[in-house]
């Protein structure tokens, strides 16, 4: 068997396994039931988009996967083991980037925080920080404070910090919700390229239908890759799926 065929087979085998699983997961907080009996399986390397109306619990599902909450009943597992607390291989990108960055540290300092937590030796940090800044498109901004950066730049910095954890899984909670349309589209493409190369598993929460279909593996499946902002969105399959999904969400809204 050729090397390529073996790799393809391995990749297909990996796709059958489950990385993160929700099994009848329920979460009650402060007397309110936020999630009830959620069943979901996330495969390794998959880009999964969770889309829905506001307040339907999608952010909470993400936070369960991040280990920030424990389910009231049912189970949430990572590689078969229940998630009891956050783990370094699972990085979470918050929507309110302003609050998730340390205002008193520069961009380099913020990325360094993740490296310090991972006990990366000091002499290695500089090079890694530079590489990460380049990866997210912020070269030369190492000495800027978050307050001196635009919203899009701050969100990219947060992504860089998350990537510094060298995660296998990236959880993104409506990361581009607070940004303007142009910045959003640029960042969408950047996230695709960043995660596709390293085969990172992504769970992406959004209320934006277009964004979910554009980015996701699971939600769509049959649209051609590579994505293109104009061509893909005009593809008839895109429009058909969009309509289908739209009707589905409308039906489940209460």
């Amino acid at each position, binding site marked *: 068997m050729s090397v390529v065929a073996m790799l393809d087979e391995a990749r297909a085998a990996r796709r059958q396994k489950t990385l993160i699983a929700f099994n009848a997961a329920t979460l009650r907080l402060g007397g309110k039931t936020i999630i009830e009996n959620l069943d979901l399986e996330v495969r390794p390397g998959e880009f999964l988009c969770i889309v829905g109306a506001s307040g339907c619990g999608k952010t909470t599902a993400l936070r369960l996967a991040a280990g920030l909450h424990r389910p009231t009943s049912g189970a949430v597992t990572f590689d078969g083991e229940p998630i009891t*607390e956050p783990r370094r291989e699972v990085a*979470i990108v918050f929507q309110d980037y302003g*609050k*998730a960055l*340390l205002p*008193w*540290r520069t961009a380099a300092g913020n990325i360094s*925080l993740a490296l*310090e*937590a991972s006990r990366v030796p000091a002499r290695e940090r500089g090079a890694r920080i530079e590489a990460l800044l380049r990866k997210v498109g912020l070269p030369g901004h190492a000495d800027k404070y978050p307050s001196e950066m635009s919203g899009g730049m701050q969100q990219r910095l947060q992504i860089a910090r998350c990537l510094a954890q060298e995660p296998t899984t990236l959880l993104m909670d409506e990361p581009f919700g607070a940004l303007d349309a142009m910045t959003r589209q640029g960042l969408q493409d950047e996230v695709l390229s960043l995660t596709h190369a390293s085969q990172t598993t992504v769970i992406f929460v959004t209320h934006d239908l277009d964004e979910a279909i554009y980015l996701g593996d699971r939600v769509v499946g049959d649209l051609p890759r590579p994505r293109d902002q104009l061509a893909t969105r005009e593809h008839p399959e895109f429009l058909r799926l969009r309509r289908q999904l739209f009707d589905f969400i409308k039906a489940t809204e209460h």
Partner: protein
Amino acid sequence: MNRAAILWRVASILVAAGLIAAWQLAANLRLVSPVFLPGPDRAWAALMRGFSNGDLAGKLIGTLEHMAYGWLAASIAGIALGALIGSSKMMRAYVAPSLEFLRPLPVSAIIPVAIAMLGLTRGMALFVIAFGAIWPIMLATIHGFAAVEPRLYEVARSLQMSRAAIIGKIALPSALPDILAGMRLSLTVALILSVVCEILAGLDGLGQWVLLSARAFRSADLFAGVILLGATGYLTSIAMSLVEQRLLAWQTAAR
């Protein structure tokens, strides 16, 4: 500073100079008895005389020493206690209300208790100064620690940071603006209590200088001492502001 600001500053200095001139005039015309109101010329002469012949320098150092020891002790204890109380919700619930009750209390009322315990000594003064100076710092630290952005704690958990790292890298820097503001307020308290304790216990310091000058009706010396006290308050405050600007450079970057 741009040109307009410089001009205003000069004009402001001229106004102040004018007021000093008016003061001189009032003294020359003996509108108020020179026993009570010396002219600025005599006050200045007394200031110079005090430094060259008299022991004014020693007295100034005495007060500065009292302030420094008390304030430093208060800062260390205040930040430590404040961090302890402020970072624990349970502690805050039990302790904070009592602290709020104690806040408006005149802190100088502890002086007689200190005298009863330690006598009219330097130790009493240092205790009183430290006790008085601890409140602004501790209360500000508690507030700073309680107000840390919760999202940052979630980031810390996600990165699996140790408890020490969370306090040192997240809570403390976040609370630093409040802590520094509290330390600046404490400087004022430390100065006032130094003077009061020096007056009461006859300790070596500016408080004693002004009291003895008053008793002997040496008004020029008295005014020299008062001016020096004002200068001390002003300069220590400026020094603290400079430190704040240095440590909080990230705040000015935003503007």
